[in-house]
């Protein structure tokens, strides 16, 4: 009996570990769009490993794992550099010959997974993506969200506005209004457009009325807006604040933005990424990188067990982390009810 036969017997089975006596370890590659310091990537990877384990695949016993950081947020930022980095990633795929590839965030999907699957349709190498804000149907390798049709599937990343607003309303039953703040980066533009399209135009009976979505280019504009809305709204919704420029045109550090805001505003902030609360804002209701990773890890296990990625719907897994910063809560004089606090996956006691 040769190894190929054994592999086929092992992995065409149901997700259990029975019969998984293959002599050859499966190979898993994780490609992150950003760098090792990006906490989203680290937590996603942890989730993938745990999700794989749920399907009976244990790291270094059933599969070997290789991770590659494209580093397209800090170092390789121009389109040419990203392309070059994508070519390196494809070389790694050719050398490592993985059985499955996880791609994290838009650049890894756009520059690696989609072109590779289009250029090598016969290889049918499964790609599973996560952290995708954009609409993946725009890529040729993906037919539709319901039925991707090819070897690329995965999970969408959509900010959980409804749940965030509901939670805020639960804590402050009399609150009615929120304003959203964002910088003017391209990703912020996308977020604002997506918010208008996917939330404002899609949902009825929002728990909070969104009175404005304000985009600012400078830190000075941010300051003025924070002061302007003090008496107009009940919450500050924080989308992005990492690309605000100072008078000289330099990017203001996020910590400076947070520090000024919490010292000059009496409005509780609601962020949509976990690190917003970690940075010092009052709360964050955001997509959980770990849980999303676990979800796509389970999908990966299903695929290794024989499921066709072409028939796995691309969904928004809607896995949310609720995070509070109690130091900021104390500054604002807010007592978070115990049952709500119990929902939190993380609580920060101090401002970063």
């Amino acid at each position, binding site marked *: 009996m040769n190894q190929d036969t054994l592999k086929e017997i092992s992995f065409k089975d149901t997700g259990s570990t029975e019969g998984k006596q293959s002599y050859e370890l499966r190979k898993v590659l994780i490609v992150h769009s950003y760098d090792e310091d990006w906490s989203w990537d680290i937590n996603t990877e942890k989730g993938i490993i745990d999700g794989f384990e749920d399907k009976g695949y244990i790291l270094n016993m059933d599969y070997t794992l290789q991770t590659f950081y494209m580093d397209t947020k800090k170092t390789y930022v121009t389109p040419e550099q990203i392309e070059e980095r994508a070519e390196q990633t494809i070389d790694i795929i050719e050398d490592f010959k993985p059985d499955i590839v996880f791609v994290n965030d838009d650049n890894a999907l756009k520059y690696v997974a989609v072109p590779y699957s289009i250029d090598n349709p016969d290889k049918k190498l499964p790609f599973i993506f996560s952290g995708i804000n954009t609409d993946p149907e725009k890529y040729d390798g993906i037919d539709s969200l*319901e039925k991707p049709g090819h070897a690329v599937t995965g999970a969408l990343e959509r900010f959980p506005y409804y749940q965030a607003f*509901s939670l805020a309303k639960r804590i402050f039953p009399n609150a009615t209004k929120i304003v959203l703040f964002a910088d003017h980066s391209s990703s912020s533009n996308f977020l604002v457009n997506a918010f208008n399209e996917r939330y404002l135009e899609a949902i009825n009976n929002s728990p909070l009325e969104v009175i404005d979505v304000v985009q600012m280019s400078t830190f000075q504009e941010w300051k003025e807006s924070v002061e302007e809305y003090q008496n107009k709204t009940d919450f500050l919704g924080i989308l992005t604040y990492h690309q605000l420029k100072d008078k000289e045109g330099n990017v203001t550090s996020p910590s400076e933005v947070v520090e000024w805001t919490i010292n000059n505003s009496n409005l509780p902030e609601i962020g949509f990424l976990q690190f917003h609360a970690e940075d010092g804002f009052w709360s964050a209701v955001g997509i959980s990188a770990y849980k999303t990773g676990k979800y796509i890890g389970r999908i990966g296990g299903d695929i290794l067990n024989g499921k066709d990625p072409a028939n796995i719907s691309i969904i928004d897994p809607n896995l949310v982390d609720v995070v509070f910063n109690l130091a900021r809560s104390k500054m604002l004089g807010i007592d978070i009810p115990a049952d709500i606090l119990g929902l939190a996956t993380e609580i920060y006691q101090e401002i970063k």
Partner: protein
Amino acid sequence: MRLNIQIKVIILIMIVLLIALGANTSISSIQFQEDYRDALQTGVVNIGENLKETIDDMLDLGFNLNNIPGLNEICKDIVYRHESVDYCFVIDTNMSVLNHNDPSYIGKVVTGFTSLTVDSNQEVTVDMYSFNGNEFYDFALPLFDKNSKYIGSIRLGLPVDIIDAKLNQLVGKSILLLIASFVVAAMMSIVLIRSTTRPLRQLMEGTNELSKNNLDYTIEIKSNDEIGILASGFNRMAKDLKKSRGELEDYSKHLEKKIMERTKDIQTKVDELERFKKVVVGRELKMIELKNEIKEINTKLKEGHFNDLD
């Protein structure tokens, strides 16, 4: 009605094409419907499993199933985010609704659903249900407490008409594609058939021209197929015919000339004979005259009239 070859071939091609495309569309539609339903069901199961994980986390934190904060909002969030999910609710073992995307259902007892009989089997079950006149695939994900006791279930509804709508959309696209393919194929076959029958028509015209003695008519066919060979044979035949006719005309013209020459020769001979005849006749007359003169002289001599002799 008489149909020429062109029309016959086009009709034949269209029929074959229609059958092939129709069969392909039918098979593809059936396959797509199955794949699409599987994909949607997988998606809904995944959504349900993610919700189950969230609820399990809450249960692990010590919340009771009937008192998990924010679960109604999560259910509503799921329904508004996913077109494939029409309802999302949580029921206890008495089939009483604990949480629902539509809070007006909370506290009501659901009837018509089969209660899950799950003790050790934690698999998702799928059944078809009709609700408010609409059909749903109902996905039930059992929930267990810390002691693995069955305490309720998550129910997610996938509307059957989504699959039908998608299939109709696909069939609509297929029909459009079929029509487009049909038109393109028809145009191509017309072009192809015309390119085949045009030389035949030229050959027919050529034959007509030949019958009208137009031997200069040639057919311009550059193809190397049988029709091309036939056309070049026709051209060669016309050329040979023309050559033969030319030769015949030449011969005819030559013959006339020869006849004229011969006629002229004969005329000359006739003239010569005439002249000869005249000479001979002249001489004969002269001889007669001479004979008469001799006879007269002899007579005179005999009669002694010597003075009368000249």
